[in-house]
């Protein structure tokens, strides 16, 4: 093991970890708690850290487990697990006509790859994530951001595979609309 792991070293990663946790948990306090537990766990198990991987990657690995713990706890507390205010299927209904064709067919996006180099694009991307209904966003972030498989997500949230696919699809449709409107300038 090369660099010693102590609180100072770990604190350099704190703000990154908090932002990571907020994206998934959408609650700054819960995110802070999860990060705190992550740092404690990191100190306790620092002998398990191998210098072959980056410290940040290792910390994110621990944080993912802590985030899942929080989600598990919350799903057992019905008062926190309130359904979304809006009907999530409304979005899908609005995008397609009765006959299943696009109400407003997607137009070409100009140079999306270039957008990834733009800081402002990532702000919009985060905003669009926040804009999604919370259950939809949660599944999407578990899948894409935390890199879990559909099977793991289903098990974690006790939902069916089909339900999981439906939520992921809605998330993608919603993100596409939002990016189209707020970034790619195809607002019509």
């Amino acid at each position, binding site marked *: 093991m090369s660099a010693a792991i102590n609180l100072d070293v770990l604190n350099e990663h704190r703000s990154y970890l908090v932002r990571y946790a907020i994206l998934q948990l959408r609650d700054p306090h819960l995110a802070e708690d999860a990060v705190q537990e992550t740092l404690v766990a990191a100190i306790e198990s620092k002998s398990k850290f191998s210098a072959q991987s980056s410290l940040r990657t290792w910390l994110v690995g621990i944080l993912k487990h802590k985030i899942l713990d929080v989600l598990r706890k919350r799903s057992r507390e019905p008062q926190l697990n309130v359904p979304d205010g809006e009907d999530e299927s409304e979005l899908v209904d609005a995008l397609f006509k009765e*006959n299943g064709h696009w109400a407003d067919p997607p137009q070409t*996006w100009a140079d*999306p790859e270039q957008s*990834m180099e733009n800081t402002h694009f990532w702000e919009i991307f985060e905003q669009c994530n926040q804009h999604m209904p919370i259950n939809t966003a949660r599944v999407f972030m578990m899948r894409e951001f935390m890199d879990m498989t559909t099977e793991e997500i289903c098990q974690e949230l006790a939902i069916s595979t089909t339900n*999981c696919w439906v939520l992921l*699809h809605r998330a993608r449709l919603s*993100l596409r609309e939002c990016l189209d409107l707020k970034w790619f300038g195809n607002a019509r």
Partner: protein
Amino acid sequence: MLDCKQNTELLSQSLERPITLRERMAMRMHLMMCRGCRNFEKQLAFIHKAARELPRKL
């Protein structure tokens, strides 16, 4: 014959599970005729890529 709504569902599911040959053919047929869905397909791939890039952009 797939409509756009069904086609987008399949495109999305192709990121989650192996797609059968029959489904793949149906999607290809639809995409040949539908510019909106061709754009959607590219944008879906972009969103997938961008979401996976997000942790590095925080």
